[in-house]
């Protein structure tokens, strides 16, 4: 099954690969610098106590991203 959905829909333990970044500005640049380009594999590790932000495994590093940003990162399940 191949479907495109925002990154914040990923549940802990699930992974997907980046399809498209729909955000702009400094946040887009920061995410690109962290290596979040198309086809990059991302795994959701967990949510913070209040459910936002969530921690993602990106190229060997654990990065916390807020939902308002991750909803603009479209991913595709692999």
């Amino acid at each position, binding site marked *: 099954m191949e479907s495109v959905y925002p990154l914040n829909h990923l549940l802990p*333990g699930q992974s997907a690969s980046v399809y498209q970044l729909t955000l702009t500005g*400094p946040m887009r640049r920061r995410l690109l610098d962290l*290596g979040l*380009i198309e086809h990059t594999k991302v795994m959701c*590790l967990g949510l913070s106590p209040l459910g936002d*932000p969530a*921690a993602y495994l990106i190229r060997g590093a654990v*990065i916390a*991203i807020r939902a308002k940003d991750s909803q603009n990162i479209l991913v595709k399940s692999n």
Partner: protein
Amino acid sequence: MGLTNRSTGTYAVDSGLIMKRQYPDEKVIALAGNPNVGKSTVFNGLTGMKQHTGNWPGKTVSNAKGRYTYNGQSYILVDIPGTYSLMAHSAEEEIARNFLCFGDTDAVVVVCDASCLERNLNLVLQTLEISSNVVVCINLMDEASKKGIQIHAELLSKKLCVPVVTTVAREKKSLSALTEAIQKVTEQKAASGYQVIYPEPVEEAIALLRPILLEKAGKRLNSRWLALRLLDADTSLLREMRTLLGPDFLEDKVLKEALAEALALLSKYQITPKNLQDQITTSLILASEAICQDVVTMERPVYQFTDWKLDRILTSRLFGYPAMLLLLAFLLWLTITGANYPSQLLSSLFLWLQKPLSALCYLFHTPVWLHDLLVYGVYRVVSWVIAVMLPPMALFFPLFTLLEDIGYLPRLAYNLDRPFQCCHACGKQALCMAMGFGCNAAGVTGCRIIDSKRERLLAILTNSFVPCNGRFPTLIALISIFFVGFRSGLWSSVVSSLFLTAVILLGIGMTFLVTWLLSTTLLKGMPSAYTLELPPYRKPQVGAILVRSVLDRTLFVLGRAVAVAIPAGLLIWLMANLSVHGTSLLSLCALWLDPFAKLMGLDGVILLAFLLGFPANEIVMPVIFMAYLSEGSLIEPGSLEAMKDLLLAHGWTIKTAVSMMLFSLFHWPCSTTLLTVYKETKSCRYTLLAALLPTAVGVGLCMLFTGICHLFF
């Protein structure tokens, strides 16, 4: 920025771009790298300096420099802030990029984390575009090999055309290869390093600009890199170039025409300056990926879901916050329990020493007034400061540093991000707040890790709402005297620490409230870009922490407190012994302050002590006792029973203690903190606000509390 004497005092200033060489042949080496890869550890290992290290990204927020010699050649090493990229999206990135471009360095060492080399290579490749005198230092090899990662340094060196060394920076021996590589690189002009190939149109556009730039600035800057920056319209760099290369550099007619031509060429391929950056970054990352495919071998996936095991508890919905509270309470409990005994020991020692001191004065035929001034004035206050304030400080600080070294602080920021987000602030403010527990001045400097100016101001202005190390002992003493009693034993120390935890929670709650108030009134705005890296937990360097926190921090703070306590002691003694119309100056002052202080449930002496404690919060309690004692009685410093009797004799009640704790929690920050606020904001208005906010809250809460007590009891 960590908590050291360098980060808290007047040293906490940015060093400029151009390094002053002591000798003309000194070499300047820049130390670059992603955040939290152990740059500071490498820096300390090479220079033998004591730059504070800690396990959280963004710890070094200004350029630190140190010297070392190797084979008779002396080097200046500059530790620049950790960045993911040199495209300057944040203040640190701008500092790093400016230093690499314009800092006149002889070589750049890029420190990489062996566990995620791929991402680190992005910075290496960007650095190679600026300078070819680069040494790649792959650090944390021990962690990587534990994870089953192998790195073929020689192959990487061949691919990048620059030396690559592997290190475990915590073990100094492993740094010898690095010093050797640095020497080699600085001695010979290196051939050009690996260059990333960009998509065809971009390369064509670069080719159009390059000859012109080579002619105009080729000596100072890499023309290929400069061409790319002109194409992607990096505004902050253009600004920097105008100041360094002259305002007309970009006004050159030939350059302008070539740039227009290049941009037209790009737009033919639907490449705008905006998506050009995407293309550049993507090319860099794909190149890193390709290099790593050959260079890194992994026995198993780098990060496994099981590595998140500890965080699944420490950041879970159910246990995240309780774990945070428990940890805080436990830390305070250790501090309270551990401080008790040395405190008593010190106080009896000081009391015992007072007799020989008096005898000595007698021996030298010191006049009585001078003896009284020295012994009852200076000596007594100093011994109070040391006996009451030193033990809790000396304990809390290393414990806190331990937590920092393990890597818990970023989890704190992760857990607390949501509440801060609701206040339209940045989760990293939690990191600054945590630093504030150690020292508010360091906390304020630490606010530099926050990118957005508005959010940084919020963090700076609210930092002193959490009690610093210098205020803890006051709170602890008051809690033990008035709320828990003197019974030693597990139970009372647990109650004390829970009480103190509650007091701190009040401070944290107030931080949120004031942050929210500020962001809805004075500093309106929306939360900005935010990503937070959560580094792996690391085994703390216990020995180093103990040495650092005792030598660097505790002794420094104590020294400052004693330096302030001596004149304060003198002043109090003089005020108590000089009288106008039969009333001592001290009583006059206290009487004058009394009406206002009474409204807040305090008395004039307490308020006076807070005023005198402006240079160092540590002396507030000692000054209060001194002032009370100047009317005669002599007690052993540090004895809680005697302290309680003295306070009760001067009209203290539980209500006074509560007001005193409230005011201790919320009043003007110490002079060092305010000075730091001024340095960070460069604004008198914000500095004044940083002093007024907590004072207003403190005065308001004290008056509210006293008023309520007045109504109901």
